């Protein structure tokens, strides 16, 4: 069975500090990977996707970056946090490409930027 582990569960960070969030997917080779984000009171929106190792596409510009250093790992980061980065971050994977496919989510990271 496939599992997805997302870390950390929660972060409280200062404006201007760096951030690194991660997730690991086990039991599935070459998954499609995604980062979604929900601002407080907002809706979940896709930030990045990756089809293969080393390739990441940005969907929304939020002064964040993402990388896929391994087939099973997806990292979201920034060198300088903004207040607007606060919210709930979800890592997800799908077995195939296309919006008709089910997304499998991690448990999420709640980020508070102060």
């Amino acid at each position, binding site marked *: 069975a496939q599992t*997805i582990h997302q870390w950390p569960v929660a972060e409280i960070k200062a404006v201007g500090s760096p951030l690194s969030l991660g997730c690991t997917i086990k039991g599935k080779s070459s998954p*499609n990977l*995604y980062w*979604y984000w929900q601002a407080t009171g*907002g*809706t*979940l*929106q*896709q930030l990045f*996707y990756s089809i293969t190792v080393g390739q990441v596409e940005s*969907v929304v510009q939020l002064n964040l970056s993402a990388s896929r250093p391994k087939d099973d790992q997806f990292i979201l980061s920034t060198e300088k946090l903004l207040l607007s980065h606060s919210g709930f971050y*979800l890592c997800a994977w*799908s077995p195939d*490409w*296309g*919006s*008709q*496919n*089910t*997304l*499998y*989510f*991690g*448990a*999420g990271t709640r980020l508070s930027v102060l």
Partner: protein
Amino acid sequence: GDSVTQKEGLVTLTEGLPVMLNCTYQTIYSNAFLFWYVHYLNESPRLLLKSSTDNKRTEHQGFHATLHKSSSSFHLQKSSAQLSDSALYYCALGASSSFSKLVFGQGTSLSVVP
């Protein structure tokens, strides 16, 4: 652009009463897919239902929904609410199989009380 509207932010129901959570959408794509994802507290969001063909009902775990393209709707229903149904419910639109992105509604928090 594509969008999903969930009118109710919070729904509070007495156990045993029927559940209906509204979802309407807008897209230019004719073969869109609609999903309901459920997010229980301290768990990962997971797929509850996925749309089938137009006017066909899909069911899972006591919940059901019917895609109505004529009214651009995919309302979630259940005949009798249970305490364990308390969760956050997201309606999501997968507009095209050419890309892999879901557009989410803002979510409806369902609270079932005794």
